[in-house]
Structures are given as structure tokens and as C-alpha cells.
């Protein structure tokens, strides 16, 4: 069965990362990023690095760039808050950083504990000096990530793509 545009966006993000010669992809798992993480682990061009907490990824990718490699950082929105102080490193050293954030607490969320961070993710990132690119249509993910990647790597800039729950579907735990 042919996949619809709504289902191929993780593969399309992977293509964009390769086109921009990204070599380190750090992540804390999220169900929305499952397919992309699998692709990165299977890749010979990309090193996939599991983190214990998201701010490790901000520091790790700072080191990657000091060593000449580009990176991307995958997380869900609840992890964005964990990065806040570490984003000072990105800003003060004028480092580049591409974050791909799958949203929670935003559109039809069943778990109210996800809502405070989900609602604050974009304003918090803006306050930290991160460019934000929200996308709520699976057909627009590739172009959005490409735009963010371009502004990151041509920058240097710190950018975050916020992938809506409208694209992934809200988690229900079967409820």
C-alpha cells in the first residue's frame, strides 16, 4: 500500500537531514519520532545518540560543531523546558542548533500534565533566542524542516520545528 503524504514526513525529514550533511542526531525518544529515530540508527551517514535528558543534546551538538559536524536534536515538547539554561551556550557562542520537536499538550491532549509545557514551548524557545517554525500539516513538514535547516546552517542560528499533534494524532492510551 502506498503511504500517504501524512505518513511519509519522517522519511522526508531524514532526507532533509542528509541533504544538509547532518552527522549527529541526538534524541530523547518520542512516539512521534519513532520512524525518524529508526532511520537514523540504520544510517551509515548519521550517528544516532540516545540522551538521558534533552539538555545533554544541546551541549553534545555544541561539541559536534566545535569538531566540524552538524547535528539535529529530537525531542517532545516536554523536553524543551529541560534545555532552557543550556541554550545559553548556543546563544553566547553563536552556535548552530536544529531542534525537531513533536508537540504534546497542545491539540486534543488527553494528559493535562503535558499541557503547561506544551503551551509554553514556543514562547519559551523564542525567549531563549530560538527561531520557531510551527507546522500542523503533514504535507508541509518537509518544506518547514528544510526552511529551518537552511536558516540554521546558513546562520549560525538556533531553530526549532514544532510538529503539531494534528499531524501525529493525539496520544490516547487506548481511551
Amino acid at each position: 500500500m502506498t503511504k500517504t503524504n501524512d505518513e511519509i514526513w519522517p522519511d522526508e525529514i531524514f532526507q532533509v537531514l542528509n541533504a544538509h550533511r547532518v552527522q549527529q542526531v541526538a534524541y530523547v525518544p518520542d512516539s512521534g519520532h519513532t520512524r525518524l529515530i529508526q532511520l537514523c540508527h540504520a544510517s551509515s551517514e548519521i550517528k544516532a545518540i540516545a540522551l538521558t535528558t534533552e539538555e545533554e543534546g544541546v551541549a553534545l551538538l555544541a561539541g559536534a560543531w566545535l569538531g566540524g559536524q552538524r547535528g539535529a536534536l529530537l525531542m517532545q515538547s516536554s523536553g524543551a523546558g529541560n534545555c532552557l539554561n543550556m541554550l545559553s551556550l548556543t546563544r553566547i557562542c553563536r552556535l548552530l542548533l536544529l531542534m525537531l520537536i513533536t508537540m504534546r499538550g497542545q491539540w486534543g491532549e488527553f494528559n493535562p500534565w503535558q499541557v503547561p509545557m506544551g503551551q509554553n514551548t514556543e514562547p519559551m524557545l523564542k525567549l531563549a533566542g530560538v527561531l520557531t517554525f510551527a507546522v500542523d500539516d503533514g504535507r508541509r513538514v518537509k518544506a518547514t524542516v528544510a526552511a529551518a535547516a537552511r536558516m540554521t546552517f546558513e546562520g549560525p542560528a538556533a531553530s526549532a520545528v514544532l510538529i503539531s499533534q494534528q499531524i501525529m494524532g493525539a496520544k490516547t492510551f487506548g481511551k
Partner: protein
Amino acid sequence: MDKDRSKRYVLHRREVVKQLLDNRGDMLVVAGLGAAAWDITAAGDVPLNFPLWGAMGGAVALGLGLALAQPSRRVLVITGDGEMLMGIGSLATVAIQKPENLAMVVLDNERYGETGMQCTHTAGCVDLAAMAAGNGISVCSTIRDEKDFNTTLPQIRNSAGPCFFNIKVRAEDLPLILPPKDGAYLKDRFRDALLGSDAAAIR
């Protein structure tokens, strides 16, 4: 907590770091914020030093990203016990990645040096080398005196990593020897020294 214990430790951090960096060759050095950054600067401010002025908890993770990007170069992370405790999960991340070129040294004076020398958890029962070992980092030890240090120095410089050394150093107030403060400058001079003309091209 034993707040007096580390006043009696025999190793002095500045001398330890001076020896770690003596004839360092092309080694890349990352220092955690505070005293560790002043220590590497006291041994000589060079472009292949990356001293942090903030980003507490990030030194080991930053060293890991650098070690993965530059597998042919030795990467040495030197940090303090408070900084290491804040990023302790990064030892698990390092252990999974197993970078052979990464060595980590904690200068453990059991104090938060920049905020008034308050005790860290290592002034109590917390053992950083045991935490590293528990993560599966196979080369790790605690160094308490000059004999241990001299024996371990070749390992820190050359042994296949990842390796982790917790060096118990005396709690002492030392003159501030500060590296450049501009992060963008520290980054650019590091990349220019490491990557040369590629630094611009890699953009």
C-alpha cells in the same frame, strides 16, 4: 557530610592540571565552568582549550560530541565535582557511545567553588568513580595522592576510552586566572585551530 576532609587532601588542582596538559600535543581540552576553566587557563590559554563560563552540567556531553566528531584526536574533559553531578546522566550517554578517544577527569574538592565553597554531595557518601563504573565505563578510578596520579597519568593521556578519573584535590582558594569570556571568540578560535581552512567551508 565531612566539610573539613578535603582541606587535608594532598593533591593541588593547579599542579595536577599543569601535569595533565604538559606536552599535550594535539589533544583537545574542554573545561567545565568555574575553577576547572581557570585551572586549564593557568596551564596556558591556547586555542584548543574550550573553557566554559556557564552551561553547568554540559562539559562531558560537549566533550562527547567533540570526540565523536573527531575520532582521531584525544579529547580530555576536565571539570569539577559540582558540574559533574549536575550532568551525571551524561556518563550513561558516554558509556553507550563508547568513544575510545574520550577521557574525563573530575577535580573533586567536594565544594561548589564559585558560590562560597559549600559542600557538594561528594563531601558525603557520593562516589563519582563508582557512579561512572556503574554506568559501564570500564576504566575508572579515584586518585588520592601523587603516587596514584603518576601511575595513572599515562592512562589519562593514552588509554583506550572512555575513561573516567576522579581526582581528590585540596579545597583551596586560588587566584582567578581567567580565559577569554566571549563565547563566540572561544568557539571560532577553537574551530580555526582544529579545522583550519575547513572551518569556514564546513559551514
